[in-house]
């Protein structure tokens, strides 16, 4: 018989490296038509991080995402970056990119202020223009400002900056210290169906409520959550590298190492928890790794809820679940019929 169950798991996860410095640098240049180029040493690994960085630079300069060209991942032409690791790109590289763009913006304010008869601190960058705060009709197009900087004052707008999360080393005896700049939080709840005759588990649905600070791009947050859950389903139920007695892998191929496919994916409902972290770029933190952290835990709790067996070793393969159900039945007192 197929039995349904539900289970939850919550988690916390840090952004960036444990204590160790993990800086990022960035360079931003603005051209005379008001479009920008970002140079970054991070690498796009499929998660959309370069788009996120473009959005951050665009936000700081008051231009659109499409106005920012991103040059990345060449040690000859891009500045130092600790790389696409530890869910750090939005937070650490994003902060560096924002700071570099801010320098460009402040250069433009210095150029534009005398032209609009105001002080630089009375200006803001908004909707492709440098605008006097409170007097939107007094403005200059950001491209004209950049052109003026280049051809009249002789200061082409370019800025570079670095960022490294603030940490304090851990005491080796007690582990006390401040290992990370910030953390994110999440809860996932799974509904599963367990066949108690075969032990087969199907994950029907997962609701995932994730904190990432400000979602710079909600669509890319959703993509990360869906990808993380697919990895979590494999970790919970299927994937395992097996060794023979001599320490040699016996299933190093995708025929015998079972990965979840689209057919194994549950319905995923992504919920982004409202939050703002003052240390992140525009309040953003990150979301890459945390998306998979609670998945196996909530699925295993749902299996327990469905059939009353606690699987304590991953993965919860059909064989393992079946054996546990059998063991539980054998342990229960026999019902004697009248």
């Amino acid at each position: 018989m197929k039995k349904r169950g539900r289970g939850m798991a919550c988690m916390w996860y840090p952004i960036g490296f444990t204590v160790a410095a993990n800086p990022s640098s960035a360079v931003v240049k603005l051209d005379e038509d008001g479009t920008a180029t970002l140079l970054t040493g991070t690498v796009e690994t499929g998660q959309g991080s370069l788009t996120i960085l473009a959005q951050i630079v665009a936000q700081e300069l008051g231009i659109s995402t499409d106005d920012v060209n991103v040059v990345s991942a060449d040690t000859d032409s891009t500045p130092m970056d600790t790389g696409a690791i530890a869910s750090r790109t939005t937070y650490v590289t994003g902060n560096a990119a924002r700071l570099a763009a801010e320098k460009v913006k402040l250069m433009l304010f210095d150029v534009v202020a005398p032209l609009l008869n105001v002080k630089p601190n009375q200006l803001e960058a908004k909707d492709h223009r440098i605008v006097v705060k409170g007097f939107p009709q007094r403005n200059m197009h950001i491209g004209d400002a950049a052109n003026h900087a280049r051809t009249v004052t002789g200061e082409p707008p370019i800025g570079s900056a670095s960022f490294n999360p603030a940490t304090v080393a851990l005491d080796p005896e007690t582990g006390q210290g401040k290992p990370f700049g910030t953390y994110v939080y999440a809860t996932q709840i799974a509904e599963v169906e367990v066949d108690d005759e075969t032990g087969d588990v199907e994950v029907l649905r997962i609701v995932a409520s994730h904190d990432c600070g400000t979602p710079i791009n909600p669509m890319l947050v959703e993509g990360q959550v869906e990808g993380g859950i697919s990895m979590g389903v494999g970790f919970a139920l299927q994937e395992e590298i097996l060794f023979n007695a001599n320490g040699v892998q016996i299933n190093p191929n995708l025929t015998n190492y079972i990965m979840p496919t689209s057919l194994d994916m549950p319905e995923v409902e992504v919920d982004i928890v409202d939050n703002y972290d003052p240390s992140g770029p525009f309040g953003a933190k990150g979301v890459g790794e945390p998306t998979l952290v609670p998945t196996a835990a909530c699925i295993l709790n749902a299996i327990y809820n469905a059939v009353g067996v606690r699987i304590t070793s991953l993965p919860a393969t059909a064989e393992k679940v079946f054996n546990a159900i059998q063991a539980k039945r054998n342990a229960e007192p026999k019902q004697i019929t009248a």
Partner: protein
Amino acid sequence: MDKTVDKNPKVAEKVSPAETILKEPGILREPVAAPLVTYPIEVVIPKARQQTPAVGQRATRLDGRLHGLGQTGYIDDMTFPGMLYAKIRRAGVASARIKSIDTKEAEAMPGVMAVLTGKDVPNNSFGPSIKDQPVLAYERVFHAGDGVVAIAAVTEQIAAEACEKVKIEYELFTPVLDPLESLKLETPGVHAPSANIYQKKFIKKGDIEKGFAMSDHIVEGHFTTQMVEHVPLEPHATIAMWDANGRLTVYSTLGRITLGRADLASTLGIPISRVRIVATIVGGNFGGKNEITTEPVLALLSKKTGRPVKSVFTRPDEFIASTTRHPLIMDYKTGVTKDGRIQARKLRLVLDGGAYCSWSETTLSKACILSAGPYNIENLYAEAYVVYTNKTMTGAMRGFGAPQVCFAYESHMDDIATLLNMDPLDIRLINAFHEGSISPTGQKLQSVVVKESLLRAAERFGWNGKGSTAGGSKVLPKEITSGTTVRV
């Protein structure tokens, strides 16, 4: 590698590579370049990419159109004039001393241009925190995926065939495979004289004994997790080439080019400024591409031959020769009051570190720091060890130990809820961090929303109290929720 091709006797005959290609046009993997296709350049730019303010927009990705049209250039799509292909012969034994390597027959094969072994590598060790990993095995083999001989040839098939012709004699040792065995002092050192426990972490907070004394119930749990692979769609791929000024350019699937360049320069014994690394759009990383793998091997083969050299991992290479996720053995003991407040928690984590350190240090730290869960626990003692075994190296993988400890602390939490006959949501809300909570390492936490995420997920899911149903779930009989638990 296609085995049927590999064993084709015709390929093994002494014929020139050109003749082989002519005779067997279908079987050879010829250089692949992206097909010449033209597309209209008038691109429709989605509105979300054009709007201001930019933050918060559902902007489509810069690379989305290229992916959609199949125009993204991955390393396997790239080719250079005169480019060679490299293959690596792997040990296939978990622990051994290399008695001899005979490469004569391989070198004599037509089309084979260079053969490389561990003794040819200028500085044959690297690693992100402990430099314990050889580029190619030298004298000793520490796990079955260790590369022993690398061969560059005019085709991938000839390189693979030549690898099979290398004769290697081993003196086999009993491998250390069980991390709990490795933990024991009497177990022979995998990297003797270095100890098998190569990193330790401790967290001590409050008074653990006092906490247990204040508790109404003590709950224990033992949990284990398995080794898994990242399985990126694009396997590790590299092309290395030198220019006439002695400057090296490497196209690589590395996710961390700054570190990769420094490690590569160090293994080759050349200044960092002579190395350029270009990372293409990477087809999935998940932590598996955070350190160099074949880059030094290809650089040296390219130097020997004066030609560009490419290597693309096969799927088996990806499993046996790249990093994997740490298996964990986790023991939890928690003291709780009858109303569900956690008073004390004691736990131990043992990480199977595999043959080399790789990113074990940061995995150990994160696992240990996160191991108590997002809960206010005044009295905590956590100890964590990572040990060497003669298994595939474990390293960075999405979550750095967190999915493993989350499985343990959240299964344990539900066990506690079951014992106290509490709703899993309620026990979490009672204990969860709040704004300003002090973490196990004594850090004051900011922007904490764990309770909000619990409540929002519960509302969205339709979680309505203990033993209730969601989406037509079966109501659990009381005796199961609070009764026998079978442990596997």
